[in-house]
């Protein structure tokens, strides 16, 4: 293996003899990709061998997905080559990648909900001028593959009816159906609970034993240590280290991944005060589907209540109900004892809200920073009079936010879409935290952020707690919840577990609870 930057790689362990004896199946050579001024991949080269499980480790924004999208032909690199089984592969066409034996399981599944599993798998496998699709032949092959790799799924089920885990199996089967020899998985555990993730990795291990080579993208150190043979660490678009997994440890990887020491803030003791927010038997039904069921919790002043769960278990609905976007269909929410009014719960009323998806709900990308800063509190006297916007007041407020929360990337007139994710989140946090809050609802506040931004968001959340604000933290990140929350409740299929004190909760128990195990245990 090549050491790409001698200075930076001084501590890297070079190739072992074992690797050389294995057959080389994939080589990426000097891949470079830029988006405008951003260098997403900078001169990346590495090799993959037959039957190994390689983890591509890196923070959000390190360039992992871009690199794999190049490998699968979704993106064309500015420079560089890829060779599969010694032969140079045509870049920029998924078709060429598939033909060469590369398969990819995308993080956002590439499935059509209106088609059956079999149809999804077979698209692109037959000539488009055939007068009839050979469904019978396809079904036989699919069933055989499913049995061989233990990926049970009904070929005739519509994808819209499948669970997330089943959809992922279909994604894997799609690649196997095309006889993939190299399988790429982009953040495969992002949507899985711990037991499902374990099952996935054991499937991947079986596949590796049958000679497939597997590359999976991850930023979770635990699963990288447990599941991979080799780790390639990416930081800011460059490879900073390659390690055999058994020769390294989590702490080393963590430092390599982040590159600098970033200390996340530590939660100090605090004395919780009165009950600020209480949910009683909350229920929410959307388009006939039960999203929340008998949800009960309380959040007290100067306390963080963490609600943790695997994505898609009702967090979005809970966030919307608590933020006053949708009224609950059952039960009620009280804020300091009074029933919470929907749609009027904004920062002006002492309720701060950080939406789950900052691009979709948090900001209007085409509008200026100052407009986004005041949009939800435009009714306040300092920002408008008699229906006219007080531009001076609004811009002064935005300028103050930029200063106080260290928002970088432009002045008050800058379009928000040009800010980085971290700075966008600082703007959202800032406009909420500018005044004293009774309650702060933070839904996935650090999703997609890099380590530095995560630390500053955590600092602000804890500062709000210290100042007496009740904080409701909804997150999929177990570490985040364990670090910030005083009490933790697990969300699963729209229901909440009983609260656990942070001291009493360990990651293993919570991981099981996130898979719904508490339901039967209770």
């Amino acid at each position, binding site marked *: 293996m090549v050491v790409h930057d001698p200075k930076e790689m001084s501590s890297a362990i070079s190739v072992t003899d074992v690797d050389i004896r294995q057959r080389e199946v994939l080589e990426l050579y000097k891949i470079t990709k830029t988006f405008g001024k951003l260098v997403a991949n900078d001169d990346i080269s590495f090799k993959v061998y037959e039957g190994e499980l390689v983890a591509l480790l890196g923070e959000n924004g390190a360039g992992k997905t871009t690199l794999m999208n190049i490998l699968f032909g979704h993106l064309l690199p500015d420079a560089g080559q890829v060779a599969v089984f010694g032969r140079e592969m045509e870049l920029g066409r998924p078709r060429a990648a598939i033909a060469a034996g590369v398969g990819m399981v995308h993080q956002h599944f590439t499935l059509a909900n209106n088609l059956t599993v079999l149809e999804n798998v077979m698209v692109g496998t037959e000539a488009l001028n055939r007068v009839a699709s050979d469904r019978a032949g396809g079904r036989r092959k699919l069933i055989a593959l499913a049995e061989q790799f233990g990926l049970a799924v009904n070929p005739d089920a519509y994808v819209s009816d499948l669970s997330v885990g089943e959809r992922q199996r279909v994604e894997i089967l799609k690649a196997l159906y095309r006889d993939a020899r190299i399988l790429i998985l982009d953040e495969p555990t992002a949507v899985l609970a711990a037991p499902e993730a374990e099952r996935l990795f054991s499937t991947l291990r079986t596949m590796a034993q049958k000679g497939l080579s597997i590359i999976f993208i991850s930023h979770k150190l635990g699963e990288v240590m447990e599941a991979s043979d080799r780790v390639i660490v990416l930081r800011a678009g460059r490879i900073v280290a390659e390690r055999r997994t058994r020769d390294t440890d989590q702490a080393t990887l963590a430092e390599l991944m982040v590159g600098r020491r970033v200390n996340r803030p530590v939660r100090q003791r605090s004395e919780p005060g009165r009950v600020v927010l209480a949910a009683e038997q909350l229920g929410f039904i959307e388009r006939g589907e039960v999203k929340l069921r008998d949800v009960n919790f309380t959040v007290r002043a100067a306390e963080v209540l963490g609600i943790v769960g695997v994505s898609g278990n009702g967090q979005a609905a809970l966030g919307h109900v608590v933020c006053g976007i949708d009224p609950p269909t059952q039960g009620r929410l009280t804020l300091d004892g009074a029933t919470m009014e929907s749609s*009027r719960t904004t920062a002006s009323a002492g309720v701060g809200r950080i939406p789950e998806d900052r691009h979709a709900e948090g900001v*209007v990308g085409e509008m200026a920073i100052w407009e986004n800063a005041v*949009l939800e509190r435009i*009714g306040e006297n300092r920002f408008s009079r008699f229906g006219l916007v007080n531009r001076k007041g609004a811009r002064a407020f935005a300028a103050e936010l930029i200063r106080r929360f260290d928002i970088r990337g432009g002045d008050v007139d800058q379009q928000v879409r040009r800010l980085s994710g971290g700075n966008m989140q600082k703007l959202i946090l800032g406009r909420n935290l500018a005044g004293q809050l009774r309650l702060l609802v933070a839904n996935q506040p650090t999703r997609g952020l890099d380590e530095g931004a995560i630390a500053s968001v955590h600092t602000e959340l804890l500062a709000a707690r210290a100042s007496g604000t009740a904080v409701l933290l909804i997150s999929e990140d177990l570490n985040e919840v364990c670090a910030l929350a005083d009490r933790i409740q697990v969300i699963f299929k729209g229901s909440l577990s009983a609260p656990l004190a942070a001291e009493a909760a360990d990651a293993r128990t919570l991981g099981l609870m996130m898979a719904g195990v508490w339901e039967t245990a209770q």
Partner: protein
Amino acid sequence: MRLERRVDISMALVVAAPLAAIASALIIAGFLIALAGADPFKAYKLLVVSAFGSRLSITETLVRATPLIFTGLAAAVAFRARIWNIGAEGQLYAGALASAAVGHSAVAMFPAPLAITLVILIGAAAGAILLIGPVFLRIRTGADEVVTTLLLNFITFLFVSMMIEGPLRDPDALGWPQSFAVDSSITLPLLVSRSRLHVGLLLAFVVALAVWFVQARTVFGLQVRAAGLNPEAARFAGISLPRSLLVVAGLSGGLAGLAGTIEVLGVRGYVTTDMSPGWGYSGIIVAMLGGLHPLGVIASAIFVALVFVGSNGMSRALNIPSYIADVIVSVSLLTMLLSLLFTNYRIRR
């Protein structure tokens, strides 16, 4: 080859976009003029002369621009809020018919200034109702307002035809059916004597300015813009989407209704079924060429009026089908889309 979003968009590009669009539309239409056996350069010269060459032609162009400013504003206001109002043609007729219908009795009951105001408001209201309905249906059932407003154009048109052949028919008029004429005391005064140019043009300017002010300076304008650009974020910020959609619908439909009302009060005095040569549809082009900006709409309305008025004279002189005006204007909509693409994106590799 791929498109990459430009980071900075210069003011020069924004201004150049419609000019480039118009220039390329004229080139394309030039080929069609040549196909008819005429010299395109001569034709375009004639076109400009016919539209701007004399005092009379200038006033005629401005008369023509007046309803286009209103329908252009109607489309611009709606499109900004992501309401696809393609029903301006019907709303225009509704406004015209309503004002013709109440024109008589309003004068009988109120003094002229009040009667004019009342007639204008009723015309606007008629247009507004015709858009509020489809937008309400979209909010409640999801029915695409593009299709409903388009179909309403036909329904409204038939309704107008039924009314002016029936209860509103002027029995004294000869030839094709037409409605009662409004009382001369409530017609709009002329701006230039010995022409047809009336104060409706000034009203159009004032309304455009007012629309700009509302969009740029008021809380309502800010909220509507947010709702148009990102409905989810607007909802999260506590803005009621149904309310802002319905208010914008009222505004947009009202503006289109005004186009009809002002035409009746300013030029015709009565309603016929051939009153509008597609001003409602041209309004969409006017809005796009004007960059959906109220003041841009004024400029592009005058351009579109120029093409229509100029083509009349040009086509008669050179024996070219007068539909060439529609071709020029519709091609400029398509080329404007391309221009906009290249102001926002650059081609890479």
